[in-house]
């Protein structure tokens, strides 16, 4: 009786430990596999410079970054986006619930990593995309959203989530 009890006291915690390690390690990969890609919603809007933009402007591999001049974390991730744009990665901005004058001033002050920024003062397009706040980043491949990161995008998230998908899709096409 004692022996069984002693054995259980050791073995049960070990089993719990092994189980959770397994869940933790699987978790991240699963999230990528389970992400259901969806078609980018149709829209007709203007960018910050006043040019007409639509869903057709999003062909090829594009990164869509939701930002705003009032958003602090956007400033935190801004240097990383600049790095990406220097590597000729095309990033489209979605200026979210902001005023155009402030947004343009913000870009002039901190640099503009975006090929263009869709101006979305009421958050209409953001709503269709299921944006919960700024910043958020989407990976778009030929008008199809294949990944979505909420919060700051950084080197680590880029390498673990976006880069494998980009390489994958480039191989296929």
């Amino acid at each position: 009786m004692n022996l069984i009890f002693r054995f259980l006291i050791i073995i049960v915690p070990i089993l719990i430990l092994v189980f959770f390690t397994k869940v933790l390690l699987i978790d991240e990969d699963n999230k990528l596999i389970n992400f259901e890609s969806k078609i980018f919603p149709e829209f007709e809007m203007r960018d910050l410079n006043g040019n007409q933009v639509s869903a057709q402007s999003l062909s090829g591999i594009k990164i869509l970054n939701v930002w705003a001049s009032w958003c602090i974390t956007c400033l935190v991730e801004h240097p990383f986006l600049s790095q990406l744009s220097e590597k000729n990665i095309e990033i489209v901005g979605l200026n979210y619930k902001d005023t155009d004058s402030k947004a343009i001033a913000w870009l002039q002050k901190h640099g503009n990593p975006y090929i263009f920024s869709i101006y979305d003062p009421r958050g209409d397009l953001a709503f269709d995309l299921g944006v919960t706040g700024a910043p958020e980043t989407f990976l778009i491949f030929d008008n199809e959203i294949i990944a979505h990161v909420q919060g700051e995008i950084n080197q680590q998230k880029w390498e673990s989530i976006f880069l494998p998908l980009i390489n994958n899709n480039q191989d296929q096409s």
Partner: protein
Amino acid sequence: MIGEIAHFLSLSAAVLLILILIFNVFFSFNKIHSNQLTLSLRLFNQACFLVFVSFGMYIYLAISDDFSIVYIASHSNSQLPVFYKVTSIWSAHEGSMFLWIVFLTGWSILFLNSLNKNHPLKRLTLLMLSLIILGFMLFLLITSNPFERILPFGVIEGADINPILQDPALAIHPPMLYLGYVGFVIAFSYITAYLFNGDFELQWEQDIKNWSFVAWIFLTIGITLGSWWAYYELGWGGYWFWDPVENVALMPWLASTAFMHSLFASSKSNVLKAWTMFLGILIFSLSLFGAFIVRSGIIDSVHSFANDPERGLYLLGFSGFISLLAMGIFAYRIPSLNSSKLVVIGSKESFLSMNNILMITSIFSIFLGVTYPLIIESISGDKVSIGPPYYNTIFAPIILIASIFIMISVDAAWQRSMSLRNISLTAAIPSVFSLIITYVVWYATGIFSILAYIGIFSGLLILTSYFVRVINNLFNNRFINKGSAIAHIGLGLLFFVVSMNSILSYEKNLNISLDQTVAVDESVTAFSFDDIKVIKASNHDIISAEVSIRQDGKNVLLNPQKRKYITRGQITSESAIQATILKDTYLTIGDQLENGSWTFSLKINYFIKWIWISSALMVLGMLITIFKQKTS
């Protein structure tokens, strides 16, 4: 600069702890030198002191709006009142971990310095505590550094604390809860030290008794405040959601409650020693498990912090190591721990140990409820959720049996068996009374729910049996343990009011235009939507509705609001609550529909106040118990 100094001090504390460990492990192979303990304790005190100073500087950084620090920039804001600037420190992962460590060192330093100079367990306890603090320090500094700077330049303005966290109840809920969680580190380390030491003649119960009682009080207050906050602030109209994170707080609470009961038995009559130790180890292991669940992001919940597998793995590894170390030495020592005496069937301690088994069963059931969705997901990939129906069905029978044991044990004596005749005498009055009252409730409400009536009956069993006891005390001068009586009356009241709440409360969803009046039911005879306006506040816009209702013949004005926070774009709901002794009228405003009308959710919640009162009674009972021991 101050940030760097604070960072450096924390690092130094970690280094000191490493020194203590190396030094003691290295020298324990030789003969233990007499000054070794004095030196270790001095180093330990200094390490703790460094942690406190470092945290003090961090508070200063938060108050002085140093937004070059990433954590402060993302969770505080220059517009915030000073109080919330400070509490913003524990509004997210890094800072709250820091607070956790501060409490850990605080408890440890108090406990170690309160022990006798040459206490035989002092050195081992010190080592165990150093190991635990060091593990968390390294976790903080390596995976979640709160001192990290935004380089090369900081930002001018912070991102604001999450508005739903800007609430006094929530500002003190995490510290209370952490004080509770962490407080059990003392029982844990002391018991582990005792087991490693291997001298089983030593008396250990008295040394940790009050420390654990105080930790239990903090834990109870922390859980209650969380529940209170959820009710008033979240706008969901409920007080307990069986959310995974609530569950991981409830598990250590149940374990610690069992631990205290068993501590009484083992200090009164020298039985259940192994049980008590096991529970003492289990509480802190469950606290560690809770920290892991909340901070690994493994489960989605209102409470969880950002998902980070690296943190999860570290915490899992570390908690696993600490818990296994303790469980391992416990398993190894079991043969020498068996109490010389056996528990007499029918004695107080026999009922007590039955309830311990029930509490372990509850812990196991909750654990299963928390992990089952993960197990299913990892096997089949399906997402399932375990909700209130599971917990209600599991808990109803457990509560019933536990209440019966509590009722009988009121009259049971330590170490002596109770005759069947006495048991039936004790049980007769409460059972009959409870049955009658339960039937009256059924008759009056006309609502039937087997689980709720089990809860009501169980609550009444406890309440009536203690009332009989109180009356006996007042008129026949029979002995009554005041602390225990008050705490158990609190528990009985909790069972009763929670069950009553579940059968009586109801919710109506209304869809109503401005200046319209509708009748809701017999109680709320008129509901009129008088006005709606938009108010601009410093950091948020408010949509405020004015609603007047006629309820039970009285006119009540309600002002439910919706707030939109500009910085975060977050929308929160401020419910309007009209509270009376018996019931709360809880009104939340929803969205505007296309035809211009608004949706409202009107909830009538019964006995909410009594839930807080019952947990206050439990805390009061505990306080009296602690106090009485000190004076006697």
